[in-house]
């Protein structure tokens, strides 16, 4: 087989994989498409791994609930439909955090760079432009605080899930304490439901409707 044919075959496989990913993911950047076509043995596993990692939180929660279902804790657990809704919300929170990480890593979203820009504009006497840039600094600050809140909430949810798994094993040995474990399950459900507040807060920031608010104490 000639090199030309091998090359065409290789790129053809890459193009087919890029098409499958484009249909499955619906959202694919130009660089991802190019890398899928040109370097699919490297890039396809990378994209699959990213996609898989996004579902890790959801799987962790469902797996923990499934294990607890087999213990005396079952009576205090949410039903299957509620569990699926909670898992989906957790997955969405993880995806939003990842998106925030990507966004805030961009050089043009660096608050230090924007602060510098504000000073330059003010020094030149462009006060209106400086004020607009200052608003941008505030928005970036809100987004960074939001990222911290997402991370903090997701960390607490992960710890509660780990505690649920441990508690399920303990309850298996001491069924009498099952009822008192209800508080743990309620806390976990409440935390995951509370992620909806963060989604609303994020939408408000992105729509420019919100002045800076500090995180409410729990």
């Amino acid at each position, binding site marked *: *087989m000639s090199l030309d044919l*091998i090359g065409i075959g290789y790129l053809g496989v890459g193009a087919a994989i890029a098409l499958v990913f484009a249909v499955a993911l619906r959202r694919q950047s130009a660089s991802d498409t190019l890398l899928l076509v040109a370097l699919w043995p490297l890039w396809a596993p990378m994209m699959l791994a990213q996609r898989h990692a996004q579902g890790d939180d959801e799987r962790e929660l469902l797996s923990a609930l499934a294990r607890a279902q087999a213990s005396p804790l079952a009576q205090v657990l949410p039903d299957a439909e509620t569990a699926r809704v909670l898992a989906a919300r957790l997955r969405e929170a993880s995806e939003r955090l990842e998106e925030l990480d990507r966004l805030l890593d961009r050089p043009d979203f660096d608050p230090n760079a924007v602060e510098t820009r504000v000073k330059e504009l003010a020094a030149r006497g462009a006060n209106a432009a400086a004020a607009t840039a200052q608003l941008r600094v505030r928005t970036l600050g809100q987004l960074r605080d939001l990222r911290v809140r997402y991370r903090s909430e997701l960390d607490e949810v992960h710890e509660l899930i780990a505690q649920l798994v441990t508690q399920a094993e303990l309850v298996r040995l001491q069924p009498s304490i099952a009822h008192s474990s209800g508080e743990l399950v309620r806390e976990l459900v409440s935390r995951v439901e509370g992620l909806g507040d963060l989604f609303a807060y994020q939408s408000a920031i992105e729509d420019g409707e919100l002045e800076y608010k500090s995180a409410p104490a729990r």
Partner: protein
Amino acid sequence: MSSEALAPPVEHRATSLAVAALGPIAIGGIVAARAEAITPLLSTPAILFGVIAATAPALYIALAATGDAPPILRVVRAFGVAFAAFGVALAGLILPAAFLAASSTSPTTTYVVATAALGVAGLLALRRLARELASPESGLGATLVFFIWAAATAGIAGRLWIDLVQELYQ
């Protein structure tokens, strides 16, 4: 090191087993494309899985006779892990083998490359099987039995494979 620490999670193991089933078919496909015959596509997995299926019980019996046999479920699980390891190792070698075979003019290169891919994956799988079956109580007898079994199994599969390749080469 316990096998639970070594083995991948169950859902990954299922994927690895699936790849283990498809890997020899892919290698057979590479050889079939060169030889312009369909036989290797079916013969390659048949040789590998057939030989293992035929000789695996002998390993358990021989280990049991030495007094070092692990529980039968553990042996079955060890073979499952080794199959998965075979699939994973072969998966990393299919693309290189396909490229080397496609870019050469001589059929010898194709057969050498396919043999090397199957051989390396098989050796890694045998090594993994040995680790899965090993225990602190295992003695010299068990080690000797495993070594003889591995050599015999590799020899039988290798001979069948070489016969297939020679038949295609003529």
